[in-house]
């Protein structure tokens, strides 16, 4: 993801961010995407997410 792509995405989400803020944000977004890429390599086929709806 480039700075310009991040700026575009932020705009779609309704945020007009300064260049300084985008430059701080970009490495964090990239880091989280790298984390997700790594998690995709895990043997997760049998795993359901531990998210449970409970009627109060």
């Amino acid at each position: 993801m480039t700075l310009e792509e991040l700026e575009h995405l932020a705009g779609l989400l309704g945020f007009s961010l300064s260049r300084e803020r985008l430059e701080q944000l970009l490495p964090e977004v990239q880091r989280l995407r790298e984390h997700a890429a790594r998690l995709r390599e895990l043997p997760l086929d049998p795993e359901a997410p531990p998210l449970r709806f409970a009627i109060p």
Partner: protein
Amino acid sequence: MNTQDLCFSSISDLASRVAARELTALEVVRSFLSRIDQINPAVNAYMVVTAEQAEEDARRVDREIAKGRAPGVLGGVPLGIKDLIDVGGVPTAAGAHRRFHYTPERDAPVISRLRRAGAVILGKTNLHEFAYGVTNINPHTGPVRNPWDPSRIPGGSSGGSAAAVAAGLCAGALGSDTGGSIRIPSSLCGTVGLKPTYDRISRAGVVALAWTLDHLGPITRTTRDAALLLRVMAGADPGDPASVKAEPPPFDEPSEDGLSGIRIGVPRGFFWERTHSEVYAAATGALRVLADRGATILDVDLPHAEDAGKAVAIILSVEATAYHERRLRGSLGAYGDDLQVRLLRGFFIPGTDYVLAQRARALLTHEFLSAFHGVDVLVTPTTTVPARPIEEDPGAGAAVSLTMSTELTRFTNPFNLTGMPALSVPCGFARDGLPIGLQIVGKPFDEALVLRVGHAYEQATEWHRKRPNFGHRS
């Protein structure tokens, strides 16, 4: 006993002396209030001190005792409360901009439990903004300073609570822990911090950070005191359906027996890598102490441990952003620099990645539970390093804060992901006088054994008895 000795007394000692009429609750509370007046400006541990209410509550305890009634197991014990937990009539600020403050009418259930046991609330303690960070460098309230070296961070996000306990500004305190926020400041300030099993303590009336990772717990000077507070704090709450229904077993009487028959698992690799040499030496020394107490030390394998932090980062980012979304859209500029970056990043994580991280959580929880098949507890260092310096350059603040989060939560956040009880106890000091913590982790709902191991370690060492002298270390 002079005022300073009184302010460093254990919770159990204070409660028993008040109950025995050796001290009045009012004398105890006034001693702490006097010390807060003297010390807090240098530490910034408290946001608000509710002195008048504390004195009134202490008088009520004394009246009960005068009538011959039992004052409760915490009768007259002064506590500090992390300022994201509701205390009725006192603003909850959560370390945030003034526009986000609110004043609850009622106490959070956990506060009600403490009051019913006779505890006296001294005030609300400082924290990292909205509990989302580990430095406690807060643009709205100023930094909390580490009592062992005021130029250092106390760790966070419950840094005010840990600093208050370490400095003798309360007998114990409440913190919250989403990635290590009880254990990290306990490690860096030389206190005992317990993150209980997920759902052990009600989170109702508490400002959320990430619903599926948040825990409440005690910060104290001894393991026995942590056990005593846990016993009062834990249990089912009708206002929080997630809280566990079963009342907890008694935690506050850790066995005086040694650790014969206890198998301690040491997860080599990830949990000991990137560790400061003095932290490594202190934690290794602690293992020898535990072995001397009769425990068997065994290596265990957690092959995907390094992935736990990745799953936590995704889950935390998404849940925190979801919690704050409305405020972010209306008042982004009211958040500090590092909070803006932390909270904005959550908007850019697809929903599929959140579910992916939750599925990884299921895998890792199974793996961590399997590690307990041959051992009773796990032991690791609590943090990789002792307390870092307070970053004074606001331009570098956000980047430094984000880096420190990754560094300091490395060994703690896997147990938020897996929900297991984890205790930090003091296990030494670096050459520059900064405390080091040892983490003891148990099976779900086995706080009793975690506390027993911590207590046995304390019985064999003196680290938890050391007191800071605000720059003149002792």
